[in-house]
């Protein structure tokens, strides 16, 4: 059987007894076996564990009716993969680094437990840039991940394997992390949806930290509905993470106005990306959504703020890896991690702290003020995810600064702690995926889901699968 792309389709097959959970999991495992040799989106595949879990679900299915099984397991039938930054009890977790090559966690991340309790089956751990440091997936110590839409292109990073595993139907949904676009960029480059929630909406307990004032836990799927379904489970308080809050968005979802920031559509944005977003805007407009020009003059400094704050926090978070309690010693760090540790140590060191780190924290406040002000004249903001469509493997890897600038449009949402959803829409002349992101005020995820679901109707969205069978 071929693997399905949505939670709803899997649930239908199970509830109508057209397939068992074991058959579904088996189909995903076979897809991985067949195509992941080329794509390299998984570091660890849970062959036996996932089938055992499937048998447990099948038992529950035989003992419960439709209503009671869905109330017990709202995500019944969902086969999930996790970026290899999520701790999974008894299953190796590497952060795609040789430092943690043989690390087997003693407990699972809160999000992993929540999803398992909701009926998800963990099919494996996905490849990524080591420690989530990268925008192309090329910084993994376990080999590069390839884009299923064109294997000579990068899938985007750092949650490269997560995006590819969803795009190529090797799982139904995948969990990733977004510190500066690490979910939205690979979603954009693989024709999948990618959510970066509000900072503080989803527990980070048990997820390997990169830059703690920016890191967010989000996910990938092929429909807006599935993004929403998974978020309903992952969000909410956790006593093990003191940075969480629960707030609701109470504005009415009618007569909406979306802001178009001038600064995001200027020099440096490729025509193909820009024209495609204009098409999206006109589809919204035809359906009564209004657009307003807005100005965010300080967002252009976002990437500079990010490349001070993030390495500073990286150097602190990675200082715990000393090879004493677990993992290998610090000699096992590869190039990009070393570069960021060194950069972070520099901006935090005496004599430079005020000039760089303190200054960056202040400019961050200026950007936040600007964003909060903007949401007084609009409900949401539309923006490109990246300056260009997917680029070729090897194109930016030797120039770190050039690679860093890939995420220039992603930084705003992380610095301001606001949610953003990457939405797939359109293709380049070469058949590579395009799309855009919609940002909203803090805790306005429901607004983003509403806009995305409406846009699916306006654009006659259909799930598109890469032609992996020709690989």
């Amino acid at each position, binding site marked *: 059987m071929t693997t399905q792309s949505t939670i709803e389709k899997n649930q239908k097959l199970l509830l109508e007894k057209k397939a068992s959970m074991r058959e579904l999991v088996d189909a995903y495992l076979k897809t991985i076996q067949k195509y992941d040799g080329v794509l390299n989106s998984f570091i660890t595949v849970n062959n036996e564990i996932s089938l055992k879990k499937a048998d447990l679900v099948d038992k529950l299915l035989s003992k419960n009716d439709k209503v009671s099984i869905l109330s017990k397991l709202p995500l019944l039938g969902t086969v999930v993969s996790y970026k290899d930054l999520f701790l999974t009890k008894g299953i190796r977790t590497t952060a795609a680094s040789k430092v943690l090559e043989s690390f087997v966690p003693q407990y699972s991340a809160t999000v992993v437990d929540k999803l398992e309790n909701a009926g998800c089956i963990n099919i494996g751990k996905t490849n990524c840039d080591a420690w989530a440091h990268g925008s192309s997936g090329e910084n993994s110590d376990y080999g590069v991940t390839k884009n299923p839409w064109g294997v000579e292109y990068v899938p985007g990073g750092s949650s490269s394997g997560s995006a590819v595993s969803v795009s190529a139907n090797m799982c139904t949904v995948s969990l990733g992390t977004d510190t500066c676009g690490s979910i939205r960029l690979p979603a954009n480059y693989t024709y999948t949806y990618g959510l970066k929630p509000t900072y503080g909406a989803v527990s980070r307990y048990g997820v390997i930290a990169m830059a703690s004032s920016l890191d967010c836990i989000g996910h990938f799927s092929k429909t807006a509905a599935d993004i929403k379904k998974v978020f309903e489970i992952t969000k909410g308080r956790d006593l093990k993470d003191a*940075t969480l809050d629960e707030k609701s968005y109470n504005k009415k979802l009618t007569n909406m106005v979306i802001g178009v920031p001038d600064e995001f559509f200027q020099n440096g944005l490729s025509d193909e990306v820009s024209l495609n977003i204009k098409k999206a805007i006109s589809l919204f407009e035809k359906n009564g959504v209004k657009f307003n020009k807005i100005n965010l003059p300080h967002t252009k400094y976002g990437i500079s703020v990010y490349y001070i704050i993030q390495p500073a926090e990286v150097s602190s978070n990675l200082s715990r890896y000393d090879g004493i309690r677990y993992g290998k010693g610090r000699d096992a760090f590869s190039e990009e991690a070393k570069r960021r*540790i060194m950069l972070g140590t520099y901006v935090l060191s005496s004599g430079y702290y005020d000039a760089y780190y303190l200054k960056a924290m202040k400019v961050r406040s200026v950007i936040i003020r600007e964003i909060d002000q903007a949401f007084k004249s609009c409900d949401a903001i539309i923006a490109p995810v990246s300056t260009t469509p997917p680029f070729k493997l090897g194109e930016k890897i030797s120039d770190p600064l050039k690679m860093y600038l890939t995420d220039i449009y992603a930084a705003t949402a992380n610095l301001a702690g606001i949610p953003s959803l990457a939405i797939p829409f359109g293709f380049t002349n070469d058949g590579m995926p395009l799309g855009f992101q919609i940002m909203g005020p803090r805790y306005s995820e429901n607004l983003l889901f509403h806009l995305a679901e409406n846009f699916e109707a306006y654009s006659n969205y259909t799930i598109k699968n890469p032609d992996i069978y020709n690989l």
Partner: protein
Amino acid sequence: MIKIKHSEIVHLADLAQIKINKKEIQKLSLQLSKIVDYVSELNDVDTKNAVPTNQTTGLTNVTNDDLTSISLKQEDAVGQSKNIYQGFFKVPITIKNKII
């Protein structure tokens, strides 16, 4: 352009406990200089009235009730280390002189 000297790179590596070879010193000196030069554009921003942001939740002093719960067993807690002595982690010496 800002220039981060080789001697500074060596000092930073020492602070960060990262071993780097001569070739890496040269490469890092060039790359970090280029990055730091770029991010220095922040000097153009007026931040006189800005308070530094270190997180965006606005939460302060989050506390939980002080309750006991089940924690990891000792063998699990130390189970990932190769250097264990009688159930404890073995660590490098940090104070070399004997204190009488």
